[in-house]
């Protein structure tokens, strides 16, 4: 997948409102290999955007295209394949499994493609400072720790685009920087496009383009 295009896209609930946005109701293209920042205020549809692109929700007007194909035409099997091999999303609400340990949460994803070895995963845990939490149940971890686990899980798959939805809202600057490094290392290795969203605090790095949602 080389590009994601939005054509006149607008969440259904915003219909009729006066929208001043660089994403909604515009023609926007995200290219593979580029880095984007989507800045937003609360309630401007940032999580909706992520949900539309991951194929979770379809309550929007206009079109979203992956490589010129309207994603409304994707079938269940297409989405499964995209989520496994082309597009990874770090959900704002994380969507981890509290019953499983941190490592199991990563393994359950890695097992789909066996993209990363256990050693690589352990190294990431190490760098993010949560190596001692690997076998702890995610439900017992702080949100900031969970965010780091979720980031690792988002990285253990092949992808052309990585979307991270407010990835550092509960992290200090040091951990934000480490997470940013790890993320960009993996994205560069895969030659992937990165879309970061933020409502204020955002990863401190150079973006190819910034959108105001």
């Amino acid at each position, binding site marked *: 997948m080389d590009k994601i295009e939005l054509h006149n896209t607008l969440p259904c609930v915003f219909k009729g409102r006066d929208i001043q946005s660089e994403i909604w109701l515009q023609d926007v293209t995200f290219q593979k290999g580029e880095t984007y920042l989507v800045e937003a205020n609360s309630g401007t549809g940032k999580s909706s955007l992520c949900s539309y692109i*991951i194929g*979770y*929700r379809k309550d929007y007007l206009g079109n979203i295209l992956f490589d010129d194909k309207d994603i409304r035409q994707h079938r*269940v*099997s297409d989405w*499964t394949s995209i*989520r*496994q091999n082309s597009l990874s*999303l770090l*959900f704002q609400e994380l*969507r*981890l*499994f509290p*019953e*499983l340990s941190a490592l*199991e949460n990563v*393994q*359950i*994803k890695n*097992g*789909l493609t066996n993209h990363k070895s256990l050693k690589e995963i352990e190294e990431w845990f190490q760098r993010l400072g949560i190596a001692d939490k690997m076998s702890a149940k995610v439900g017992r971890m702080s949100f900031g720790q969970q965010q780091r686990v979720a980031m690792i*899980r988002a990285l253990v*798959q092949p992808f052309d685009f990585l979307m991270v939805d407010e990835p550092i809202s509960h992290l200090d600057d040091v951990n934000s920087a480490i997470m940013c490094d790890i993320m960009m290392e993996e994205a560069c290795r895969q030659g992937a496009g990165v879309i970061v969203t933020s409502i204020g605090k955002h990863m401190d790095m150079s973006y190819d383009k910034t959108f105001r949602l």
Partner: protein
Amino acid sequence: MMSLVWKLLRQHISIAQFAGFFFANLFGMFIVLLGLQFYNDVKPLFSQEDGFLKPEYLIVSKRISGMSVLGAGESCSFSEKDVNDITSQPFCKSVGAFTASQYRVVCSLGVNGVAQMGTDMFFESVPDRYVDTDLSKWKFNPEEGVVPIVLPRTYLAIYNFGFAQSQSLPKISEGLVGMIDMVVVLRGNGQEQHLQGKVIGFSSRLNTILVPESFIKWSNAKFAPEADLTPNRLIVEVKNPTDDAIVKYINQHNLELENDKLDAGKATYFLRVVTVLVMCIGMLISILSFYILMLSIYLLVQKNTEKLRNLLLIGYSPVRVSLPYQLLTVGMNAVVLLLSFIILYMVRGYYMNTLWAMFPQMQDGSLLPAFCLGFCLFAVVSIINIIAVRNRVMKIWNRKE
């Protein structure tokens, strides 16, 4: 990795609910299978097939009234016109006449060479094509002098329970008809001839002593050449024995159908009713248990909706997340099926021993119909389970949950 998915999805499984389903289904399945098996095992005892007369053959005679006894009423025999009339009825396929012997017959019955019971009697024949037996046995050759005979089954009962009992003679089962010696003496037209009779079987539907057509033709020509051969009884082949038109016609023309509705027929009927009833109850239990299972699964999926949704969002296919629950239900169904078979086998062994003690001639039936029914139920229930789980997961995929 599948074990991780299972670790996740087994959350909220209620052992009590599944145990409830398991035992209820086991019970229901067992009752259904036992009903069928018992019916199959016991049915042959009630419905001994009549090997000599197909069910589509009806035996028709004229009703005997007081007047005909005195010779003043209608004749008891069928004229050619009567026969043609029956033949022309839409329910009728063909008509054959009973031909009676017109000379004197004395017959003595014995066992193992000792003559024991002698009586005057008569013979009748129907056209050979109405006799449903091996036709090579069903012929008479004057040079051999052996007459094949079919006796009414009641004769056997008369012999076994009346005669043999009082004379301390051995009882004869149907399989041992060869033991019956029958000497037949034919007299008429100034001649007498001794022949050997050979009982080849018994019929519950024929109230006559049946011999081959060729024998009656030969003997009537020899011993009673001038006799009148108008038949008293007809054998009618009908298209459908349950056709109402037959009864209507019979009543209109003052005819009589020879009663072949034996008590065994009634017993079979009641057996069937009881079996169906028992199987219905078993089925009902099965359906209710199936309902419990579906509710449990729905509840489980409901409770684990968030987990299932997250699995789908991180790239698991609906097929893959449905699989653990599908395997769970199908596995339980399979165990239920297996256990039902085992219990059925044991229970059947128990009652078959009792039945054998009561009816030594009973043949060992097959468990196959019950197995087939069990497999069919298993397959149907499993397929519905698989589809239901899949539909539930697709609802989550489509965000309807």
